[in-house]
């Protein structure tokens, strides 16, 4: 390795470590620091600008933007409030049934939308319902966070780690559904039973307050019936597009963006208003991450790590798979899973090119570990942080340790189930 290459390795490593440390510390806005690190990689000539832009996974970016637009428009119809109120009324105000049904609604929604969006949609309604029932909202939001992370594991579009894995591989919507949905359903059911036991003393409501929930009128929530019909049709077309996208040789981003622009067209929504509500900070965070990790790949660090991992595991698929599953789970519990997965993807790709082995089981290990690991602590996933923030605004402070005592065992249970699943069917 000549001196220039050595310098580039050194610079890339320093910038990467400092940037990731800053992201994990949460003392600086993560988008700003990710972009800063990315720009430094270009300025210090670790990689040229054209190459930096070339490593951005625009499939991930396009999929995120497309789905965000669809959800922003869909939210205006009031359909999510309708579903939540209808669910609460079906439960007849019974808190355990609300807990169960809201968890199911959250898990299913999270399989189709990303976790943060799902929480942002379900949490406000949950807070109004628990206010009405005079219940502590914490068990309900806790169950919704857990359900969102589990539900998001089941599909390509349910969680950013899966979106990133899908973008980097040939794995499509149906691949994720067939391989991950079954274990996600099993984990969800078992987790629900455990949570019911955990919160069994929390669900005491007076009959008077139950009746107040029955007084809610879900029909009032539908603000725009025409838009609802248009959105429903387009969402249906989009989901169908995801199911068929591999068969028709279209990338998932194309499907999502098609759905988004089709909905913008038919709904005549003001594009400025809609585009303003896109989480651009999340999008640019991804852009920064892709460049940072691309720089590590450029200087050969990822390839070196991949070689070391193959040496460590002697190329044994089972050991490698378990190592990735458990390491991803524990890492994702304590640090943001998105930068973690962004780093792991080229590592696994390098392992494939070095060893020639079929690394598909490793993708499932990574997806399961990174998605489910996010349940482990309050900082494990963005959805957790957002829900904790909502509770704090209402004067309910959830400490790191209190949350850890409840959530970490649940996460371990889910990873044990995933371990058994992977060993039975893949390794």
């Amino acid at each position, binding site marked *: 390795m000549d001196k220039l290459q050595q310098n580039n390795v050194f610079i890339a490593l320093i910038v990467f470590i400092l940037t990731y440390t800053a992201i994990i510390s949460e003392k600086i806005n993560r988008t700003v620091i990710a972009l800063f690190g990315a720009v430094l990689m270009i300025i210090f000539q670790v990689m040229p600008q054209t190459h930096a832009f070339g490593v951005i996974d625009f499939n991930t970016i396009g999929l995120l933007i497309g789905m965000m637009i669809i959800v922003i428009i869909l939210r205006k119809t009031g359909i999510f*409030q309708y579903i939540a109120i209808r669910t609460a009324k079906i439960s007849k105000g019974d808190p355990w049934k609300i807990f169960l049904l809201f968890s199911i609604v959250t898990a299913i929604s999270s399989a189709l939308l990303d976790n943060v969006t799902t929480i*942002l949609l379900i949490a*406000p*309604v949950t807070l*109004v319902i628990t206010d009405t029932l005079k219940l502590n909202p914490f068990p309900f939001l806790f169950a919704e966070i857990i359900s969102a992370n589990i539900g998001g594991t089941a599909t390509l579009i349910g969680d950013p780690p899966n979106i990133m894995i899908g973008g980097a591989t040939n794995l499509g919507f149906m691949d994720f559904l067939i391989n991950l949905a079954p274990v996600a359903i099993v984990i969800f059911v078992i987790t629900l039973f455990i949570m019911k036991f955990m919160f069994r003393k929390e669900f005491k409501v007076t009959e008077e307050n139950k009746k107040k929930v029955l007084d*809610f*009128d879900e029909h*009032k929530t539908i*603000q725009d019936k025409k838009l609802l019909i248009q959105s429903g049709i387009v969402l249906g077309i989009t989901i169908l597009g995801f199911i068929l996208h591999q068969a028709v040789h279209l990338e998932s981003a194309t499907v999502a963006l098609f759905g988004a622009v089709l909905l913008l067209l038919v709904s005549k929504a003001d594009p400025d208003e809609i585009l303003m*509500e896109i989480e651009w900070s999340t999008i640019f965070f991804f852009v920064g991450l892709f460049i940072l990790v691309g720089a590590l790949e450029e200087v050969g660090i990822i390839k070196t790590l991949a070689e070391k991992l193959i040496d460590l595991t002697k190329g044994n698929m089972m050991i490698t798979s378990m190592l990735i599953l458990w390491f991803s789970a524990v890492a994702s519990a304590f640090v943001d899973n998105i930068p973690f997965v962004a780093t792991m993807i080229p590592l696994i790709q390098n392992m494939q090119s070095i060893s020639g082995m079929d690394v598909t089981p490793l993708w499932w290990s990574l997806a399961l570990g990174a998605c489910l690991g996010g349940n482990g602590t309050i900082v494990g996933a963005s959805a957790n942080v957002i829900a904790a923030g909502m509770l704090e605004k209402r004067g309910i402070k959830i400490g790191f340790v209190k949350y850890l005592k409840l959530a970490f065992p649940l996460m371990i249970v889910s990873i044990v189930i995933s371990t058994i699943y992977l060993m039975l069917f893949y390794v």
Partner: protein
Amino acid sequence: MNYLNVEASQQEMKLIQMGAKVEQINSKMCYIKFVIGGIPVEYVYNLNKKNQYFLERIKPYPLAIRSYEKVEDIVNVIEVDIRQFKNLVKSKNVRSFVDITKEFIGIIKRFEDLMLYYNVPADEVGVIMSKISEINQEITKTKETASRVFFDKEPENLK
């Protein structure tokens, strides 16, 4: 932004259940602060794409001015308002003006409480109306005898 969306969703849900039609509009809220002769004069206005511009003075006393169709009108209104206040602070009555206005606003709020919380007999309402007429007549009488000091525009409510 996430927090705002969550709060807005909760409020919207509660208001819709009360029978309201709720429209959330993305807009810019602007706070304008002046200090004129030691008196804070502050405004808030809202700009949005629905061609609704709401301007309200919040200090030295709250006063809803009105809604406007053109954003340029907001600056003109504030400009005239500030010139009037600059004129006013030269007067010996400025403190009395602020105090009396605050009293009027307090009276409106007390009257509102009276009507909303109590069953007020019609003759008592009549008494209150007659007192208001007296004050109106006093204002008109004072206008006839006082000398005018501001000519940049005509008064909107005192013809």
